[in-house]
């Protein structure tokens, strides 16, 4: 085993995990507090990437583009909540799934009409488009390090927000017992809108972070949506702490699995069989993990109290 390689793969895994966390944090809050299954969360991720693309294009600066795209996604989230989703809170989960699936189709087509069907590239500024030698002989892309830094900062921010502020208290209360919070005279509508906007902004931020690595394109949200759901279910719905841990676990398992499984299988199987079984097996790992977790702990790793 090459330890330097393993170290690099762990970094890659953490980077993917933190990206998933940005998405999962919002989704788990929306799910836990409003009891809303929002499939369109991936669309907000996509919109974030497209906003960043356009703003960065107009201002000629990646950083300013992201800073402008962030409030834009927040605003979009609030609009979506007020116009479309508010009426869905008292519906059952299936109705919500169907309606938000409709939203996905709508957003995808809208993007196709506004920005065109071809994939777009969000170029990086020079200072991020390099690599740093994190260990002797191991250069690592600066931008991926930046993603890790942003992810950790957001995690810290969310921790402080939820644990130390009044609104965080309401969020925690809402996750454990929604009716009680309403009964205590809290403006539950406003709370919902704020939480949804926050979740949308985080999803949009994930989209902006992913855009320079991937391509800004229609349907990019659906690809990552299922992984995000896996994360929040493993973590326990409504739990930010659970989402954080689960996201890192999924990111690591996916990346490290992809990296070392072929070598492991090579030891056990003939080369041809190993090289075809490896991609299938490594894609399966996250689902195996989720099934195991749920079989042992049917409500995830950190089920919110009272739920």
């Amino acid at each position: 085993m090459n330890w330097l390689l393993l170290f690099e793969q762990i970094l890659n895994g953490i980077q993917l995990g933190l990206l998933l966390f940005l998405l999962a944090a919002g989704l788990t809050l929306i799910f836990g507090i409003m009891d809303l299954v929002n499939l369109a969360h991936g669309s907000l991720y996509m919109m974030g990437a497209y906003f960043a693309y356009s703003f960065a294009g107009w201002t000629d600066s990646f950083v300013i583009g992201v800073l402008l795209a962030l409030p834009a996604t927040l605003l979009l989230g609030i609009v979506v909540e007020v116009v479309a989703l508010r009426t869905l809170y008292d519906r059952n989960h299936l109705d919500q799934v169907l309606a938000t699936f409709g939203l996905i189709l709508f957003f995808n087509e809208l993007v196709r009409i506004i920005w065109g069907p071809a994939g777009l590239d969000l170029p990086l500024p020079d200072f991020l488009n390099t690599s740093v030698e994190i260990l002797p002989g191991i250069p690592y892309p600066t931008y991926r390090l930046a993603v890790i830094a942003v992810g950790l900062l957001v995690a810290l921010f969310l921790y402080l927000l939820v644990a130390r502020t009044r609104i965080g208290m309401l969020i925690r209360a809402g996750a454990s017992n929604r009716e009680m919070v309403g009964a205590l005279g809290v403006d539950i509508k406003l709370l919902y809108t704020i939480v949804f906007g926050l979740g949308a902004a985080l999803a949009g931020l994930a989209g902006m972070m992913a855009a320079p690595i991937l391509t800004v394109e229609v349907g990019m949200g659906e690809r990552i949506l299922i992984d995000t759901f896996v994360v929040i279910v493993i973590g326990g719905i409504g739990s930010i702490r659970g989402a954080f841990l689960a996201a890192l676990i999924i990111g690591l398992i996916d990346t490290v699995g992809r990296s070392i499984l072929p070598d492991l299988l090579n030891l056990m199987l003939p080369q041809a069989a190993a090289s075809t079984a490896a991609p299938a097996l490594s894609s399966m790992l996250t689902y195996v993990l989720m099934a195991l977790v749920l079989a042992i702990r049917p409500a995830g790793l950190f089920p919110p109290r009272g739920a």
Partner: protein
Amino acid sequence: MTLSVRSVTVILVLLGLALVPPIASWVDQGYYTVLFARMLIMSIAAIALNLILGFGGMVSFGHAAFLGVGGYVAGIFIFHYFEDGAEWMGNGYVQLAATIVASALVALFIGAICLRTRGVYFIMITLAFGQMLFFVAVGLEIYGGDDGLSLYTRSEFPGLFDLNDRTTLYYVSYGTMLACLLVSWRLINSRFGMVLRGARLNDRRMKAIGFPTYPYRLVAFVISGVMTGIAGFLLANQTDFVSPSMMHWTKSGDLIIIVVLGGMGTLFGPLFGTIAYLLLEDILPSITESWQLFFGPMLILVVLFARGGIDSLLGPRSRPDD
């Protein structure tokens, strides 16, 4: 006795479906036999899903996996029959028996684990198993892996029928669909069905009055899995092709949408839902390339204004159960 709108509609739809092959060949449009055969087969899967989703409250988000199990049994048997000359594997009875056994075992295994969870966790754990089976299919290198497997002949049932004939396949699918409707109807109106529906509405109370709901729900899950497996078997024969894509999570999602669109927990809803969904899917793209712009909001409107799906448009249900 006066017939309700619903009864008239059901009779007309069933009659109409029975007449598709002769009309299609009359106007020289064999394609419609193909399209409607697909509808019938998908409706079998939808009826199966409705049995546990609509009546049992179990939202399986991995049901397409059973389509895949049935499809791959047919595909793999025919592959060996064709490539290695294994005569017995070309026998339709053997293939069907293998489909039923395989899908029952898979359903028993998945159901036994998944039914320990509830609500959204159940949705996600069934998704997990569905995706695992999907990736198993991707890893089946000799059966084409990601690319899938073409069937070079179809299942033959010596002495009874041969699915190579398009019209035969159509009526076999039609008969199977009717049989599944009948099974569903008998099941949900039996004591078994009462327990199942009771468990959906209030599991704790059912347990309190002495019904161990878990085995009932598990049996329903297995029956549903087997029905879907048979649908997969027919689907492989109908398209001459199996691939992992038939068990992708989006296909499971399609099935759920079909059931909700048609009216979950109603006998004929899944049939209506399938017809509507597949017709739209066939017609809309030929009208405009950006058909999803209309399809999406349409789904939202159905949820907001047609609660209970298409079935609810046919008037109130004769015997509401919730």
